[in-house]
């Protein structure tokens, strides 16, 4: 058992007071290793909340640098950070909240050739990527490495998320099969997003990670949670594992990862 310092007891007091979390739950958080894929609209709130929660080791992957157009929703990046690498900018804010953490930056473009090596050794992965091919790649790699995953996606006023525990619950590919054809992906003019929607969904994903680590509550497994911020309607859709899923089914046909083609208009949106 960890001997918490006085400062730690005070910092984490609101977790320790929770009946379901307690001292044991906080200990699990401090020992956990979590990877955030994308330091954008979703990755920023995820990173800040996981850091504040005391998740002991947090990895963050992004190859991009901070752009002025990111600041409307990517809440860990400040005006002074424009031009800086997103992972370094996010790391700086996470450590400013909680200096006792280890933050590992991966300033790379995730692809079939490097993803398994990067995610290996983490207890939980959060997907905050902005394109379908990478979402499938993250899902497939997590299934192969047997690492639980929170999928998240936002567009305009909408958000959706599901939690995947490989071998036990439905995966992203069970539900969505394959990336949509490039002409079905929204064009630039359709690709706005309300900034706060990123925070709404990112914090739901962060809560799922904290629940998984501490073993509290019921995860969004076999469930797609969707919401629309215009009406504030939230909906849970029951999902089922597909026996013929090419990655997590009985006879997987995807045995090696591959890089799917990006949409023709490569949106520089970084949701």
């Amino acid at each position, binding site marked *: *058992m960890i001997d918490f310092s006085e400062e730690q007891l005070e910092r984490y007091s609101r977790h*320790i*007071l929770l009946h379901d979390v*307690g*001292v*044991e739950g906080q200990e699990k958080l401090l020992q956990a290793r979590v990877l955030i894929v994308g330091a954008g609209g979703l990755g920023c709130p995820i990173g800040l909340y996981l850091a504040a929660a005391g998740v002991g080791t947090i990895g963050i992957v992004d190859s991009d640098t901070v752009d002025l157009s990111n600041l409307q929703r990517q809440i860990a990046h400040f005006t002074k950070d424009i031009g800086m690498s997103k992972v370094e900018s996010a790391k700086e804010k996470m450590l400013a909240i909680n200096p006792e953490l280890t933050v590992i930056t991966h300033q790379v473009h995730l692809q079939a050739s490097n993803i398994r090596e990067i995610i290996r050794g983490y207890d939980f992965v959060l997907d905050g990527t902005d394109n379908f091919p990478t979402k499938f790649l993250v899902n497939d790699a997590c299934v192969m490495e047997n690492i639980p995953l929170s999928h998240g996606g936002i567009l305009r006023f909408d958000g959706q998320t599901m939690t995947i525990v490989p071998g036990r619950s439905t995966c992203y590919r069970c539900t969505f099969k394959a990336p949509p054809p490039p002409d079905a992906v929204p064009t630039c003019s359709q690709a706005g997003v309300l900034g706060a929607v990123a925070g709404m969904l990112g914090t739901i994903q962060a809560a799922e990670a904290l629940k998984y680590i501490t073993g509290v509550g019921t995860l969004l497994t076999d469930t797609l949670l969707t919401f629309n911020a215009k009406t504030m309607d939230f909906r849970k859709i029951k999902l089922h594992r597909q026996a013929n899923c090419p990655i997590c089914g009985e006879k997987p046909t995807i045995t090696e990862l591959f890089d799917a083609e990006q949409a023709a208009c490569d949106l520089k949106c970084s949701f």
Partner: protein
Amino acid sequence: MTKADAVKDCRHVGCPMNMVYAKVALSKLQSGQILELILDDGPPINNVPGSVQKEGHTILEKNRLDDGAWQLLIKKA
């Protein structure tokens, strides 16, 4: 008087940090062992015993001390 297995003095510790210390002290005990917890009069003694019971533990004794503080004997669930 019942013999305590551990003592945590929370005099001059306000709510809710006194409850945090109580939980930490209890987490170090085995089920059935007894924690002696000292609490200030006022909000601490009015709030902490209820929270301790909500977590499933049993309050065996509640005694007023000479200095006005309270002694609780808690049996861990």
